[in-house]
């Protein structure tokens, strides 16, 4: 049973906390010119600075073996920094920052106030309420961020001028040998929105460490032309494990994300290649135990392959749900050879709701995920307003509600983009020309049957959506709602869709974790029974 009054009282008690925090909204952000950048390579040579902790030697001797151990002991003699931010401050473009085994809490950054008195005034305010300008990040880098790399100087070109092509890497054998740890959530002393922020930091490489406990993003990359996120474990963020935004020429490789209140991996406002290219690649990665494994409002131009998204509440969502995201409507991402399975995490149940409602944010256990956005529990892939996406040769199984879900989002709901980087609003701008080809539905890679609630769910809206070559167990039939789907390449004729199916979604928009955790008329937040 829900008890609204206590929830409201707690909300009122938290009012100061929430009101003093920064919003998800970002300053007006702009896509870089992709022709001027490239995906950076991982480098093993070049100028470097070394960071270590007093116990790094002990950790090296206990945890490392062979050549890695010898290399780390050599590096230890060159160590001049105890904090990663200090090394970033000293670094010049093309430097490598080598971080020896240890736990990095970045105490000097934690001591910087969240509303830094050195950065007051109009030039430090963003356009949206509660947002901060780039100048704020540049002049007060540790106000919101434990470690900030800001590469653009005060010229107007939004391109990296210094601290470009930085590479920050842990030198251990495993990511867990180097741990970078935020202070926690909300108003907890020392808590920061972001553990790592790469802002106009073209060519940034982050590699081989573990990061946790941010209030917003563990790893945040914005307005950056060229990035590589590699061999990183990101866990227990209040919102996002990895978030890249209005960035291009990027790679996520061998990253692992879990325990995020929103999404493990979020390449939102992705590259505007409009199906001519994919500007961000996600590969060999794993995202689990989050509210959503991978999500992207305006998650455009991302090629995700050979990765797995499992045991989240929902595996993947890409959408045109929200304003403030350049590149609307969402289009042209590609999914190939991924495993999308068992996304039934019951994070919206009564017990979890009560914990999240009744525990002040700064006192929450970061390891207990409190969902910060809604998701249809038990769904593999949600496309909520998107065009020209390709889902090919994926294994999609054991998602108890739906394997995939495709529906329309009226264009007027996302609103006009004040940055001018989106298409003009058109009511029926989505969902068109999405292709589901050659996927294995309701069956594990070893051939065992493991059904989804229904394999393909579609509200019937749009044109050119198509399904071809998809198979169920033993090469048999898949299941769908509607029963009849349309073959590629022609796909579906133009339609405004099924009103009843669309109506089933409206009430879900009223979800609020504090005041309306189980909206009447919406079944998304109750985990479906396992299909037989």
């Amino acid at each position, binding site marked *: 049973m829900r008890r609204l009054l206590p929830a409201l009282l707690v909300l009122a008690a*938290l009012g100061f906390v*929430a*009101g*003093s*925090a*920064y*919003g*998800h*909204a970002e300053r007006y952000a702009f896509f870089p010119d992709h022709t001027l950048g490239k995906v950076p390579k991982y480098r093993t040579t070049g100028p470097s600075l070394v960071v270590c902790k007093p116990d790094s030697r002990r950790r090296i001797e206990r945890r490392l073996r062979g050549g890695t151990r010898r290399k780390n002991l050599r590096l230890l003699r060159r160590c001049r920094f105890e904090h990663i931010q200090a090394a970033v401050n000293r670094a010049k473009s093309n430097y490598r920052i080598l971080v020896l085994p240890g736990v990095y809490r970045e105490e000097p950054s934690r001591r910087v106030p969240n509303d830094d008195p050195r950065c007051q005034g109009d030039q430090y305010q963003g356009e*949206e*309420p*509660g*947002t901060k300008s780039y100048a704020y990040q540049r002049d007060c880098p540790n106000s919101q961020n434990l470690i900030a790399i800001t590469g653009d100087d005060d010229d107007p070109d939004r391109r990296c001028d210094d601290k470009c092509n930085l590479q920050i890497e842990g030198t251990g054998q495993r990511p867990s040998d180097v741990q970078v740890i935020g202070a926690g959530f909300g108003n907890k002393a020392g808590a920061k929105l972001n553990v790592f922020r790469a802002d106009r930091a073209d060519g940034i490489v982050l590699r081989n460490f573990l990061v946790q406990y941010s209030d917003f993003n563990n790893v945040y990359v914005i307005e950056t032309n060229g990035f590589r996120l590699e061999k990183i474990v990101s866990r227990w963020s209040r*919102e996002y494990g990895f978030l890249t935004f209005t960035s291009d020429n990027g790679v996520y490789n061998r990253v692992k994300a879990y325990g995020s209140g*929103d999404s493990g991996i979020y390449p939102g406002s992705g590259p505007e290649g409009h199906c001519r290219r994919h500007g961000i690649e996600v590969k060999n990665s794993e995202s689990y135990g989050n509210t959503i494994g991978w999500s992207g409002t305006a998650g455009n131009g991302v090629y995700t392959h050979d990765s797995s998204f499992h045991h989240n509440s929902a595996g993947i969502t890409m959408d045109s*749900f*929200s*304003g*403030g995201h350049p590149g609307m409507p969402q289009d042209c991402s590609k999914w190939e050879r991924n495993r999308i399975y068992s996304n039934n995490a019951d994070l919206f149940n009564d017990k979890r709701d009560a914990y999240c409602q009744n525990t002040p*944010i700064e006192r929450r256990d970061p390891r207990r995920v409190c969902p*910060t*956005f*809604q998701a249809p529990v038990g769904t593999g892939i949600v496309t*909520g*307003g998107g065009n020209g996406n390709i889902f090919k040769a994926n294994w999609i199984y054991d998602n108890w509600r739906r394997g995939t879900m495709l*529906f*329309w*989002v*009226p264009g007027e*709901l*996302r*609103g006009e983009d004040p940055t001018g980087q989106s298409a003009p609003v058109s009511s029926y701008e989505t969902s068109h020309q999405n292709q589901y080809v050659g996927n294995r539905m309701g069956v594990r890679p070893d051939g065992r049957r493991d059904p989804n609630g229904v394999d393909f769910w579609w509200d019937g809206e749009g044109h050119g959506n198509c399904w071809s070559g998809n198979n169920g167990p033993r090469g048999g039939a898949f299941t769908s709602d509607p029963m009849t789907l349309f073959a590629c390449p022609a796909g579906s004729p133009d339609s405004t869709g099924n*009103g*009843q199916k*669309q*109506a*089933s*979604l*409206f*009430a*879900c*928009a*009223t*979800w*609020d*974790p*504090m005041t*309306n955790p189980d*909206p*009447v*008329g*919406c*079944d998304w937040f109750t985990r*479906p029974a396992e299909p037989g």
Partner: protein
Amino acid sequence: MRLRALALGAGFALTAALPLACSDDEGMGVGDLVWATPPKVYREATLPRDRVLVGKVRNDSLRQIKVVATDVRAVDEDGDALRGNATFIRGYIHALYPPTRPPPGGLPESELERTGRELRLRPGKTAPLSVAWRLTPGGEVPVRIDYGPGWLPIPGG
């Protein structure tokens, strides 16, 4: 529940005091809003006690009207509200700001309207309205949609 009845009564009183507001005793509703097209009521197979009404309303007054979604409820013959929620959008979206992380000063009006939490409707204009309610075993069925200063009939209600 009684508070809701009082609110409805206050709504009637307010309506009577406003010369530009319309009223109709023949099942068309009371207040500035009318159904622009007949609403439909849906039932989701997985939620047998829930109903979702989807319609389009028009402002038939001569002034702009503001309605807050949390003030909109399905009510029974006695004026008691059923548990439910409402929104002024015809699709699923979510807010730009996470619910526990609003901006200083709260959500801007534009965001409240975009996400269907508030409606500002100029005279003669239409807007979508979706209202969900949950029936209780043996309980009353709703007969109208109360939105504060007025109400709209539920077809068949």
